[in-house]
């Protein structure tokens, strides 16, 4: 099967004039062969790595898209595992800017196998409402799950012959049907072979160039407070999610700031600083007195900051320092007023006594 696929991809490479033609011819042939070779999986979804053509310098950095063609099946969740030999290939990053997946159960990860001899990329996420394939007329590549950013391993230096590195789809890869049953869809997969040669010329980095062109901040998003006890957790936490449609989200940062710095019975200043975190994020301030800021940062450093103020409860209002200061001011004013009235009454009485005393002396 692997040999057939390799041959198929060679055929596809042989007629590589435009990306669209290559995709069309390559996928048509693959689809036809898959249908012939495995008739029971004729309507299976097809997950494949889209190979960039040609031979690469061992220091070049480029992206390899991981694509899916549901072929009539509607899918909604994927768990993709891709294995490679780290001795000849390095996966240095995973791009999700052009991904069709907006929700990730875990951020895409690059791992090493137990013995360290295998590199493993894990992609796990889903599409609300499902994905049934490319829309007729779509000019974009709306079938990408992620892009693997790869480069040749440094140990290739000095090799005079081209070295072939493979990325294979692990058998643990699962795609789920969008039918409400949580059942896995039939799936055919295809890995990729990449050819590297040692070169002394300056490395090409198409990935970095693409990232540098991203000047747009991540999409605007909402921060939602989840009251922990109602969902089986003892703590309050926040949830958030957004996308960046160019270079992809790099990370999130969270800042909890108490503008008054002091609580009613907490006279120790709260320190405010950004911390990296993921959704769901358990709040440090479980009393919900702090204002919360969430920052989404994309691969090129563009930022989107969203502010969230937890709703005020009566207890919090009553124990807010600002409220206490106001209450104190009111008490001072009230006390001053009472004192003023007392003094005025005394003065009036004193005057009356004086008047009374004067009248008596005249008599």
């Amino acid at each position, binding site marked *: 099967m692997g040999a057939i696929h390799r041959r198929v991809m060679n055929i596809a490479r042989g007629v590589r004039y435009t990306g*669209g033609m290559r995709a069309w011819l390559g996928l048509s042939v693959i689809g036809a062969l898959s249908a012939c070779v495995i008739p029971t999986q004729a309507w299976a979804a097809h997950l494949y790595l889209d190979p960039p053509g040609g031979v690469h310098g061992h220091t070049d950095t480029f992206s390899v898209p991981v694509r899916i063609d549901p072929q009539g099946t509607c899918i909604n969740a994927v768990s993709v595992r891709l294995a490679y030999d780290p001795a000849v290939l390095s996966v240095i990053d995973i791009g999700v800017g052009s991904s069709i997946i907006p929700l990730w159960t875990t951020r895409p990860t690059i791992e090493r196998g137990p013995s360290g001899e295998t590199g493993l990329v894990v992609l796990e996420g889903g599409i609300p409402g499902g994905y049934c394939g490319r829309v007729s007329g779509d000019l974009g590549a709306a079938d990408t799950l992620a892009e693997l950013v790869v480069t040749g391993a440094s140990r290739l230096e000095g090799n005079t012959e081209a070295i072939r590195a493979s990325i294979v789809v692990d058998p643990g890869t699962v795609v789920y049907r969008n039918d409400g049953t949580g059942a896995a869809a039939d799936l055919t997969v295809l890995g990729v072979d990449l050819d590297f040669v040692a070169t002394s010329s300056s490395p090409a980095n198409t990935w970095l160039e693409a990232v540098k062109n991203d000047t747009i901040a991540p999409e605007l998003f909402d921060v939602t407070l989840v009251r922990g006890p109602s969902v089986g957790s003892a703590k309050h936490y926040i949830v958030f999610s957004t996308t960046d449609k160019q270079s992809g989200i790099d990370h999130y940062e969270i800042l909890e700031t108490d503008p008054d710095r002091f609580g009613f019975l907490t006279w120790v200043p709260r320190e405010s600083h950004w911390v990296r975190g993921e959704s769901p994020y358990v709040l440090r301030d479980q009393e919900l007195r702090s204002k919360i800021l969430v920052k989404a940062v994309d691969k090129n450093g563009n930022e989107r900051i969203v502010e969230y103020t937890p709703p005020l409860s009566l207890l919090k209002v009553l124990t807010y320092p600002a409220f206490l200061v106001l209450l104190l001011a009111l008490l001072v004013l009230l006390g001053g007023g009472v004192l003023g009235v007392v003094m005025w009454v005394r003065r009036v009485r004193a005057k009356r006594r004086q008047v009374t005393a004067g009248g008596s002396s005249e008599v």
Partner: protein
Amino acid sequence: MVSRANTRCRVVFAVCIALSITPGTVGAVYVATTSVSLTVCGDAIVSGNEFCDDGTNTGVYADSIAGKHCTPLCSAWGPHCGDGVMQTLYGEECDDSNNTAGDLCDPVCQNEQDPVTEGGGGGSGSTGGGGGRSSGGARGIQGAVTEGSVPFLGETSVIIKGRAYPGATVTVLRDGEVERVVEADGAAQFEFSLTDQTPGITTFGFWAVDRAGRRSVTYAATFQIIQNAVTTLAGILLPPTLGATPEQVPPGGSVTFAGSAVPSATVRAYVDASEAAEETQASKLGEWSIAYDSSPLTAEAQHTVRAHYLDPVNTALKSGYSALTTFYVGTGTPTPGGSADLNGDGLVNLTDFSILLFHWNSTGPMGDINTDGTVSLPDFSIMLYQWTG
């Protein structure tokens, strides 16, 4: 930049994919539909309902027919010299529907002197045009619109058109978050536009509530929003709503399947894995119902039904399938179906997703929607199916 040849090839590819999805051949209940199409006003290809598309679509005034600009929505040509309408706003003194000289209206729509009566008989049409104004610099570079000194390349916007049910409330999701709520008209059609969109791969989801309060499944389409262009997603057919009443019937009892679809559509309902459909026609208000005799069904068991409809305008097009609805035949106690609304607020959204993640890989019961003893991807898949945003 996508070349025209490349674009055509990709379009052909997409069509081939669409054609390969032959309705009925799969027999499964999760077949993709092919009614949705995308047109991009700004790709220099006239497609779909576009009247024109010159790639930039500024719609600004042009001083010749050859240089005319398409309007930003690709629905008409912008004003130009030669359109037969005298545009005094743009300095036209005449417009005789052409750009030829010697016919009293010069190529840039300025009055020409009559060569016979005023030119003394010696002049010719072509030389008479020599005194006309410059067609270039005075009006700036053709095709460029400026706001102050910054070139304006056109808005990035999306137009969405589809059909739900008459009077339905349609909730629109953008990458899983509620973008807006629109209402379908009496003919079940809805249409709206979104401006200032970020270009890139985007998933729009749609679900509707019919007049009886029944909710549809979420229908989603993923595509690329093109920068500085109007991307139109058309042909959306929301799957029908479906309810089964009563939810439990004695063996041999009758159960009614009812819901909403587009008016006058042929609705087909499939019970369990049967390929034989129960068929009816929706009313002009889009309502439909089927009385189903449960005699052939296994007693003391849970059964499922789902439905779709044929587009009454083009019966070759089918909607997607409705939600899988369950009913119980027998007198026993049915097992309740798993709900992804983990916090019970009536919505399935990011909050429920976070709760699921909070209990990820645990044994539940919170988050274990399919009750298989672990909170994992199948539960996530069910949640995505029930997603409301």
